[in-house]
């Protein structure tokens, strides 16, 4: 009986392994990408493209989510989107998504930019950082695993933490 419980405990601990993963050195390949990865329009010539779904591992890593939060300020995302509540740009912490809520959609918005003010960051910032920001943006709507989401911010508390956020869809 005891070995079984121990094995189960070990297996359970494996489930949360990714939370503490930190990638401190990134390969040059992880830095480059200038174009988006999904088709935005449903109307396509010829055979339709297969649908792309992406699993963003940054969402499962606490360090990456924290880096996303830091970069969100460093690259002045908060200049337009404030702390997620929106301002000049749309709110990010609510349930409405103009260009889709999936990681690949948010990634492409950051890479390509969007009309009426959203700049294109493709080629300006490394691709792995875009994935980190994507993960943080989704965490504002409670769309990332609670285990990895930020429990508190380093700054003055202006909203409930990403960890306590209910899922918005």
């Amino acid at each position, binding site marked *: 009986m005891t070995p079984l419980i121990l094995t189960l405990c070990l297996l359970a601990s494996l489930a949360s392994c990714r939370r503490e993963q930190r990638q401190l050195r990134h390969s040059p390949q*992880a*830095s480059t990408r200038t174009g988006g990865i999904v088709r935005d329009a449903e109307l396509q010539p010829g055979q339709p493209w297969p649908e792309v779904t992406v699993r963003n591992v940054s969402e499962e890593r606490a360090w990456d989510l924290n880096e996303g939060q830091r970069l969100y300020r460093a690259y002045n995302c908060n200049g337009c989107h404030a702390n997620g509540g929106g301002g000049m740009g749309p709110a990010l912490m609510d349930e409405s998504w103009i260009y889709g809520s999936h990681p690949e959609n948010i990634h492409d918005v950051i890479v390509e930019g969007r009309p009426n003010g959203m700049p294109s960051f493709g080629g300006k910032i490394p691709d792995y950082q875009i994935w980190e920001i994507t993960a943080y943006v989704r965490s504002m709507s409670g769309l990332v695993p609670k285990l990895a989401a930020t429990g508190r911010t*380093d700054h003055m508390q202006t909203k409930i933490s990403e960890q306590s956020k209910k899922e918005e869809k």
Partner: protein
Amino acid sequence: MTSSSYQDALHPAGPYANTIVGVWWFYLIVCTIVFVAVWIALFIAIRRARRRVEPDTLAPRAPRAMMLALAATTGLLLAMLVSSIAGARALSPQGKAVTREIQVTGHQWWWDIQYLDERSDHIAQTANELHVPVGERVRIILASSDVIHSFWVPNLHGKRDLIPGQKSIFVIQADKAGLYRAQCAEFCGLQHAKMAFIVIAEPKHDFEQWLATMRASAAQPKTADEQRGQQVFLSTSCGMCHAIKGTSAGSRVGPDLTHVGSRRTLGAAVIPNNRGNLSGWIADAGGVKPGVLMPPNPLDPDDLHALVAYLESLK
């Protein structure tokens, strides 16, 4: 760069480090004498106790010696206390007129250094290289942008912490011209050990000349290579974090690069600033400093050479 007193608290180069080293030597001498005296007294006591077979009484046999030891202990402790208080008074920044104010902000893992004028306006900015005029008191205003760091130039002064959300002030003075290495002295994360800077104490004339250069905007690119380098700087990721005064790059996330070509070191006094190191640093800063916040920048080799040529021209 590697003279014997490059980073050495026992070779003071200014009055404050002198005070500290004075107190240090005084403490060391007193403690050494007391240490030796106690051991000698202990050995004498043991030898005498062996000769005597039966102690007839437990009362102290030599009240005079006891009184002497007590008086010596009290006297020495008082002397140490007085020297410590006098030292701290001499080091206090209060009531000291200064000729210049410099604001030093600690970041993970580099130092942002800004020179202020008489009206506390920021007039020049550099990183990881603190120039001070010889023989003048300079007020250092310390702040931190993330975690607690500590400013420590052993040849000039003791340590002073940089605390987030708080400004701390202290005064330094260098009397000997020279190059002194300084080190972050409070564990601040992965690359704490590689968070250093250099202090350059130079005659007033040289200092003023240097400051005038720092105040100016960046040099315009002259050769075709440098012009292409500037284009690379402004069109790729560099300008997202760094600023070059006189161009459209104005971000304050990373060190200011307006006069990066004139700096002696890279990566917070970790590697000498030369063409090879600069190229390597741009391509993969994490190779030198794992965990550094600067991402790898896979550039076309020709673009990288042009960029390095441009940055080197920013004297």
